[in-house]
């Protein structure tokens, strides 16, 4: 189900989305009119749980913002599906490399729960950059956000400590840990569900 955003549509969701964009706008001193112009090109989508939203091999030409629910980006390596990306409400998401480079994505995206998200097409975003150069600053915000996500992931691989990685996830993404099944969290962290389960038991014992 798709519809372009209008002020009278889904007020609560729109307010949630605006609130997140305003954070970026404040950082870059973006004016209200510019933000309004930026928001005018987003489209709302609603899908039931387990829907495949995007198939690997295609060019990922959009940026998504999750309003409600959870999704996962899966990469198939040697016939095995690995959860590569997890995202919940308030997250911008997509295959940003494929988006920037125009390559086919190695990822497929699936709704983990019932899902509501907004999307903007690359051509619309580039059109906005041309019409209003200040929107480049929102683009900087989105790129900075993406850099932070990758840096966190790399840091996790550098430290190689499962406990640290899981605690980091709990600290920065508590909603994600609540909404996403344990096997996906384990796959995302690069371990078996059993290892994650053992770690959680150990952590619970130390807490008491």
């Amino acid at each position: 189900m798709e519809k372009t955003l209008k002020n009278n549509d889904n007020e609560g969701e729109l307010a949630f989305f605006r609130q997140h964009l305003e954070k970026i706008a404040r950082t870059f001193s973006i004016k209200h009119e510019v933000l309004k112009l930026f928001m005018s090109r987003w489209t709302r989508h609603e899908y039931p749980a387990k829907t495949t939203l995007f198939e690997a091999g295609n060019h990922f030409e959009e940026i998504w913002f999750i309003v409600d629910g959870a999704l996962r980006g899966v990469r198939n390596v040697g016939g095995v599906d690995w959860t590569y990306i997890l995202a919940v409400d308030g997250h911008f998401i997509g295959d940003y490399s494929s988006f920037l480079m125009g390559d086919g994505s190695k990822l497929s995206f699936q709704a983990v729960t019932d899902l509501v998200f907004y999307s903007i097409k690359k051509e619309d975003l580039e059109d906005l950059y041309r019409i209003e150069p200040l929107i480049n600053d929102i683009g900087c915000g989105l790129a900075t956000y993406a850099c932070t996500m990758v840096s966190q992931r790399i840091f996790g691989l550098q430290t190689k400590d499962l406990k640290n990685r899981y605690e980091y996830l709990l600290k920065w993404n508590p909603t994600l840990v609540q909404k996403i099944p344990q096997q996906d969290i384990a796959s995302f962290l690069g371990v078996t569900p059993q290892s994650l389960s053992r770690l959680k038991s150990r952590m619970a014992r130390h807490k008491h």
Partner: protein
Amino acid sequence: MKTFRDILLDTFKVYFTPDREEFEEFIKISKKREVPAKTILKTQAEVFDQLWFVTEGMIRSYVIADNRDYTSGFYTTGFFLMDPTSFSRLDTSQFNYEALFPTTYHYWEYEDYMAFLERYPHHRNGRRLFIQAKYLHLVGRLVDFQTSNLKDRYLKMIELHGDLINIVPQYHLASFMGVKPQSLSRIKTEITNGRRNLSMNGENIKEQ
């Protein structure tokens, strides 16, 4: 020997050819800093309110977590360097920076850079491209982490930073690559022996 102007122009040309007047203006508002080896340039308690461009030597970025030092990046001649999050929000950085060797870099103060963007709004596009390029660089590193062997990753570092990488303290390089210094040492020996054998074979061919 290439001048600051030549090196900067080479770097810009990867993305776009700058207008001559704007390029001169951009150079005019930069400042130069020369530092001896082991100078701490910024700490994670400070705001990263400058844009840096390395013209000689090497800068290392690192994170201190759980009393351990994790190297997050190396920057050599022709590299721009900034913490986009700290720079955008004028908030404290997550990273520390030190000159590993005698280093020269040119820098732009936040206020001067923003005044430049006010004067030439179309350069907001360049700023976005710069952060997007940083993202793609990080993704490349993440993919290497997950898919390439240590030897290929080490050879890639030499390709990117030249032979200077061979004199970087081993523990910093090992930390950056997420391995033990001993593992890195084995790979370096293997590469050195490989080159020696190759060179010896070359001499034999010449003699024939």
